[in-house]
Every structure is written in C-alpha cells, then in structure tokens.
C-alpha cells in the first residue's frame, strides 16, 4: 500500500472511478479475491457461489474501483459479455491447481479475446494464478504457456501467482493494473 501512496502523491492525480470485470471459471476464487480488498467491516466470513454477479467497490490510494464480480458457473458465462463494453480492465482468475479444466479456461479466454467489444481495445488484462499454496498447483509460467498468453500482442497483460485466502500476490497484481489503467486514462486525456 505504501507504494500506492507514494505514487499518488507523486503523480498528483485525482481519484478516478474505474470499472473492472472479474471473471474466471467457477470455484477459482473471484469473490474471495474481491473480499480481500474490502474494508474490514464489510468483509464476509463465508463466501458462497455467486449467482449472476455482485457489484463491490474498493479503493486504493489512486483509483476507486467498481468491481463486477461475475459468476463463473458454466450456465452464467454467457452473461459476461453484457459487461465487456464499459469496463476499463479485466481480472481473469484461474485456479492453478485445476489442471483438468485449463483447456476450458483457454476456451473461455479465447472467446473473451475474440469478442467484438474487447478485440479492438487496448484493455489491460490481469491474470491471477490463484491457489498457489496448493500442492498440485502449476506455476504462473506454466499457466501462461498453457494458455498461450504470449500470443496476446495488442493488449497489456500480466500474470501473478496469488493466494486469495492470505492475500499473497494480490496487491502486486492490482498495483500493475492500476498503473496500466492510469496510463490509458492519462493517454486519453
């Protein structure tokens, strides 16, 4: 957090409101990640499968985030596209211990990248290789290779290994996303 503060002071920009879309397969830890960023009193002790979506707000020192936490259940994945248009960044959460469904993740990712609302925009995508504490988990490099992330040329992306229960790796990822979004906004202005 300290770094954010310095950055904000350094750049002297106003706190901007931005929308981010949190997607990924079910049981990958999207709601848990969002829960981590919430204020202490709003935190939920128990995370249940999301049906549809949830809107959560959290802030860091330079940006105010509105996160659309989408349901990852197969039945609701078609609904993600309704929210593509107006988001400034995408957080894609992957369960790195679930090797079996990595191909499903790839399918969903390809669909996302080919969507007309996404493919022509330079929209930053942050990948969380979540559940890194699990024994069986793949490293972020392996996941990046497995998903063919190196082929994404027109969008800034970053992958960071994380543990949503403890919060490890989450801040680093969001830090990168903040930087990217701020850059696009600055550039537009």
């Amino acid at each position, binding site marked *: 957090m300290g770094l954010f503060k310095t950055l904000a002071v350094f750049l002297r920009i106003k706190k901007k409101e931005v929308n981010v879309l949190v997607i990924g397969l079910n049981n990958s830890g999207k709601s848990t990640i969002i829960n981590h960023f919430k204020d202490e009193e709003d935190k939920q002790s128990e995370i249940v499968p999301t049906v*549809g979506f949830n809107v959560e707000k959290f802030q860091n020192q330079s940006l105010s985030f509105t996160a659309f936490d989408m*349901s990852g259940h197969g039945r609701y994945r078609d*609904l993600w596209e309704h*929210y593509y248009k107006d988001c*400034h960044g995408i957080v894609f959460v992957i369960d790195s211990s679930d090797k079996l469904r990595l191909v499903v993740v790839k399918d969903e990712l390809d669909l996302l990248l080919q969507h007309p609302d996404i493919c022509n925009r330079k929209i930053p995508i942050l990948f969380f290789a979540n559940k890194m504490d699990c024994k069986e988990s793949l490293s972020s490099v392996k996941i990046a290779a497995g998903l063919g992330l190196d082929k994404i040329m027109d969008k800034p992306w970053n992958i960071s290994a994380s543990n949503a229960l403890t919060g490890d790796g989450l801040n680093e990822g969001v830090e990168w996303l903040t930087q990217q979004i701020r850059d696009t906004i600055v550039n537009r202005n």
Partner: protein
Amino acid sequence: MSSFKRDKKEEEDGGGNPFQNIEKTTVLQEARIFNENIINAKKCTHILTKILYLLNQGEQLGAKEATEVFFAMTKLFQSKDVILRRMVYLGIKELSSIADDVIIVTSSLTKDMTGKEDLYRAAAIRALCSITDVTMLQTIERYMKQAIVDKNPAVSSAALVSSLHMSKIASDVIKRWVNEAQEAVNSDNIMVQYHALGVLYHIRKSDRLAVTKLVAKLTRMSLKSHYAICMLIRIASKLLEEEETSNDSALFSFIESCLRHKSEMVIYEAAHAIVNSRRTTSRELGPAISVLQLFCGSPKPTLRFAAVRTLNQVAINHPAAVTACNLDLENLITDSNRSIATLAITTLLKTGAESSVDRLMKQIATFVSEISDEFKVVVVQAIRALALKFPRKHSVLMNFLSAMLRDEGGLEYKASIADTIITIIEDNADAKETGLAHLCEFIEDCEHTSLAVRILHLLGKEGPRTKQPSRYIRFIYNRVILENPTVRAAAVSAMAQFGALCPDLSENIQVLLARCQMDTDDEVRDRATYYSSILRQQDKSLYNNYILEPLQVSIPSLERCLKDYIQSKSDEAFNIKSVPVVAAPTEEEKQISNQKTEGMLISTGPPRPVVSREENYTEKLSAIPGIQQLGPLFKSSEIVELTESETEYVVCCIKHCFTRHLVLQFDCINTLNDQLLENVRIQLDPSEGYQIVKDIPCQKLPYNEMGTVYIILQFPDDLPNTVGTFGAVMKFVVKDCDPNTGLPDTDEGYDDEYMLEDLEVVLGDQIQRVTKMNWAASWDESANGFVEMEDTYSLSSMNTLEEAVKNIIQFLGLQPAERTDKVPEGKTTHTLLLAGLFRGGHDILVRSKLALADGVTMQLTVRSTDADIAELITSAVG
C-alpha cells in the same frame, strides 16, 4: 432561452401529466446513461420512473429491448443511492417476465436481502422471488427461510407473500417452509400473522385433515390480526360447506362467536359467512341478520353498502329473514349514496308485498337517471324477478321499463332491459301486446345492432300470432329503409315469417320483399330472393321447412362436416342428415345459468360459446381407432355412475349413440395408491340382439388417473330389442406397488375382477331433442306420410300433472314444444307436445293428452316416419 421559456409555460399549465408525451424509443435511448462509469442517481431514477410508467401504460417491450434495459439496469447496483436502488427492484420485477437471463441479479439481491440496510431487504425479497424459477429456488431457500422468521415485520411479510406467489411454480419446495410459517403465525405484527396464515393454509389446503387441525388450533388461540381472523372465518366456512355433518360443530360456533368480535370487519365477515352458507337455517340466520341490520344504521358508508349488498343477496334465498330489516332498508332508500339506495330498493322489491310495488317503483324513478349502468342492471333484474312474482303488475313494470329503454345507456344495460321485456312477454300472455309495442318503439331508435337484430327476430316469431299482425309490418319495414345491412337482413327474415304465417298479408309482404331485392347488400338481397321465391310457391310444407323452422344442426359440426366434404372431393351431394343435430338445452341448464347472476352485483364476462356435449366428445372419440368409421356421433348420454363414488375403483359410463352402433365409454379411476392396474377390460353381458364389434382395453391404470375402456356394439336390427339392460364386470391384472413412487414391486401380477352395477340402455339414448318453433304446423303436415300410433295408459304412480310431464319428458328424451312443459295452475287436463329425432334421422312427433283423476291418465299419439320407431315408443311407455 426559448426552451427555458417553453419549460416555464408548461409548468404553468400545471396539473398536467409530466409523462404524457414520452416515447418508448426515446426512453430506451436515455436508458443508456445507466452504463456510464459514474452514476447520476437522480437522472437514473427519473429515467427508471419513465420506463415503469411506460410499462404500466401497457407499452410492450420486445425480449431484446427488455434484456438490454435489464442489463443496463443491473449496473445501477453500484450506486449506493437508496431511492435508485428501490427503483431498480421495481424495474427488475416489471421486466422479470420479459427479459432473458434475469437470474443474473440473484446474488446481488441475495446480498441486499441479507444486508444491513432495512430499506432494501423487503423489496429485494420481492424482486428476488419474481426472477427465481424452480431450479434456482434451491439456492435461495436458506435465505427465504431466515427471512420468514425475521424480526423485521416488513421483511417477514415480504418473504411470506413471495412464498405464496412461488407456490404456483414450486409448491413442494414451499411445503418445506411450513415450520417457519408456523412460527410467523405467532408474530405480534398484524400483517405478518395474516400472511403467515395464508401461506400455512395454502401449503395444507389439499389435505382436509391438516386444515381442520389448523383451524381448530387457531380458533382456540385468539389471533391478534383482524385480517387473519377474517381469513380463518373464510377457511372455516369452506370446511363447513364441505362437511357432511350438521352446523352444530365447533367451526360454526367459532364463526358465530366472531359476530361478537370488537372489529367491524370481523363481524361483517362472520355475518357474511353465515348468510352465504348453503345449509344455514333461518334460526341460525337470525343473529347474522340482526348484525347486518345494525350496520345499516352505521354512519360509515362502506359498512352500509356491505350490509345492504349482503342483504340483497340473501333476499333471493331467504326473503322471510330479510323482512325484519325492511324498516332499516326503507330509511336507506333516501341515502345520499346512490349505490346503497339502489341496493336497498332492489332488496325491498325482492322481499316486499305486491301492494308496495307501485310506491317503490315511483321511488326508483326519481333517481334512476343518476346511477351508473351497473346498478341500473341490478334494478332491471329486480324488476324481472318482480314481474315473475306478481304477473298482475306487468303494466306498471312494463311502463317503467319502456321509460328506461328510452334513456341513455350502454349495450349491457339496454340488453338486460330487452331481456326482461322478452321474459315477461314469454311468461305472461297478457303482457305480450304491450311488450311488443314497446320493443317496436325502441328499435325505431336503437343504436345497438345486435339488440335490434334480436328484437326483430322476436317480432318475427311472436308478431304473426297476435291479433293484429299487420301493425308490426310498418316498424319492421322501416328498418329495411333506415338501418345498416345486418339489421336490414334481420328485418327481411322477420317479414318473411309474417308472410308465411298470415295468409292475408302474404301478398303485401311479397311486394315489400320484391323491393328488398334491389338492396345494395348481398345478404339482404339473397334473403329477400330466397324468401320471396318460397312464398310464391304457396306451399305450406315448404313454409314450414324453410321459413318457420330454424336450422337444427349444430353449427360447429356443420362446419366440420362441410370441410370434410370439400376435402373428400366425392361426387355425391352433401347430405345434411349426416350432420349431428344440436340438442336443445334442457330447462335445468337454462335455470342454472340464469340463477347465478340474478340480482347480484357481479359483472359476468362475455358468455362462453356454447359447445354441445356431442361436439366435445366427437373430438375425443375420433382419436380412437375403429370409431371414426361409424359415422357422425348422434348423441352422447349423461354420465352414468356404475359404482358408488367412494369405492376402490370408480367407474362411470357414457353411452355414445351412432347411426347403427353404440359406443360405451367407461371412465375408470383407481383410488388405491398401492396398486397398479394393467390390462383393464370391461366384460359386458349385452342383452339379446346386440353384437360386440370391438373392445378397446386400457393398458395401464395408475393411482388417481383416469383410464378409459371403450366397447363398440352394433344395434340389433329389431328395434324393440334395442332397449335393454347389460351386466358388466371389470377385469384387470393387479400389481402391488410402492405408494410413493407408483412403481410396481414385482413384474408378477394377479387377475382380479370387480362387479359393476347394471347398465341400462334406454329409449332416450337413441333420441335427440329437437326444438320445433311451430309444432302445430309440423303436426298438420305430418298427417300424411307419417305413421301414427296411439295408445292410452294410466300412470297411477303420478299424483300431479307437473310430475307426469316431467317424467314423460325425461323418459322419452324428447323436447317439449310451444312451452307445453309448463302446466297452468289449477287445470286437470293438459296437452304435452314433444318433438325429437331418432338415430338415423327419423322425425318423431308426440302428442300426449293428460288428465288428472286418481292418478294420471295419458293418451299418447306418436307420429314418426318409421313404423317401428312409433311402435317402439308406444311400447316403451307401457
């Protein structure tokens, strides 16, 4: 600047609807603002209001538009504005049935309903339940159960009401919430208790025993909520209606005790329940009536209205009990609330004596122009009842009705007046001339085509039989000159009736019809040509068949037959005899349809199109192999029960009569939940001469489902043998099964049989009722060409003429003509005229002369085109 000025001007207009000029496309365009990053709560609320306004004005959104708006709306969940959020809930509820993928908001709503903000919780529950389907209900079940027992009454009520709504789609899930609902009944909050009772009753309503227990428990508990008590009274009175035992039960004493409750609402509900109960005797009625009487003097108009309205209803069944309130009702006649006054007067008319009729009619006349059509209809119905009760007063009533007829009014009101006049005319021969004169005057200036057509038809039917038929011709012909084509066509038909029935007018009519042949409308010209060419023949029998008697086949069947005929492309001419005849409605059916609306303030919807019993069955039967080739269905009998209604297996039979075949339809129900019946057959022991052509068994008969067995028989060639008694046994294979799943325990079953009561095939099964407008003409005409049989019987078991008439009609299955089924009072002789059609299209005319003296003596004359049929009928009576 200019726009500012305009805005100002609009404001000054004031009072106008700010949403008057909004348009769907513009609003949908505006709704895109929902997608912006930073939500402007005020603006969004305003746009949502516009959307809701449009939807409630009946504007239709397509699925695509709705989905787009819906998803834009979901983005508003990021705003923390309370008003906006609540508007979003409303929007979700409105769009939930049109938009796709509405379940997307499930989690967001669940969060709100369990959250801290109380203003969100109740509304979120209602919205959540509107988007939830059966599959999703599981996910939210836990939250719903919590919400039902929530401390906050609004939340609890919302959850209860929503569960009630959802029981329509998932009653078995809701049933699991019974414990929570039970707890909510004990709530201190008035609404929660009421809603909880509603849910509890709904969960248990199919289980009589459980409902009885529920009521018994709650009646002892003395509920706090008045609404809940009212509901309990309704449940209790429903139980009472179904119960077999007498009124001395605990339920009734509970309702009676509610008459002494301190809330007026509860008292009224209890009184209402008592007076509307079918089995209430006058002794029990007493306290309820006196409560209502008290209400009549209440300063609150609602109470007065409720009391008078209820008394008005009771007056039909228990006029004597209401007489006690006559004094109070007299006071209400001058009530400033016209609705109350109308009901008071009509109630008095129902209960009053003949002497007070004049005074009351005068009273009504003073304000009849001030009340709405709905109430005028009530007045008219009361007058109709009065006219039937006091035939001697017809002149006063008729004058009053004709004055009402001349006033302004809607179709329903005018139609009810015309109906009343027509009933009076039919019932009372003295009133006929004046009534017809009034109606003639009315059609001179009648804006309702349908009514004018009906009256013209009536004039055609009744006019020729009056003393001076010629006076009506002018009125009818005026219609030909002045009216629209539909009325002109009806007028032409009416004139033709005069031409056919009054020989001295025939020539004049022909001149008029010749003029009508120049009409601009096809239908009018066709009718005029048709009638004038028939009249030119001067042949009585032609008159009879083609002018006086209406078409007797059922119109839907005729349509179907003609369609088949066109498709079959056969060279033969179309045979109208092959079309099933429509059965004339029996007297009871007519009475039932009349009674329901009599004097009640209930507007019934448009009458359902009448489809005959045969029409209904034809469709069902034509799907059965082997039945279609039997030809058109001639007649279907009433349902005959072959078992007691509460036995292991319930079997009913319907006899379908075809030209040469009889099809027996056995509807079987298995009431044992631990048995599965297979290969169900009916073994029939037909009487002599009958041949079983085919029987179609029912393969499977699970618990509580209806299965049908058909047997096709051929009628014996000898007509007298067609009447007989068949023994019947139901045979089947039983398999024991699990009551819960309905699956059989083993594949092995055992044969079993069940005795059924004997089935009787009677004469009436083979005869269709036919209405003859002009029975006498048909009778004269039938003197040659028909076979006549005559016999005399003594019906010693009958004591009155009415009884004899009723039994004869029922036994022969023929339709009485010329209203001879009503026996004038005080006569000792009567002639009953009957008509019908035997299967195969043979006409039957029957004249039965009855005389009363130590039992009834009857001379029966039967004429038919077929000698055997005439003999069959005469022999069957003996």
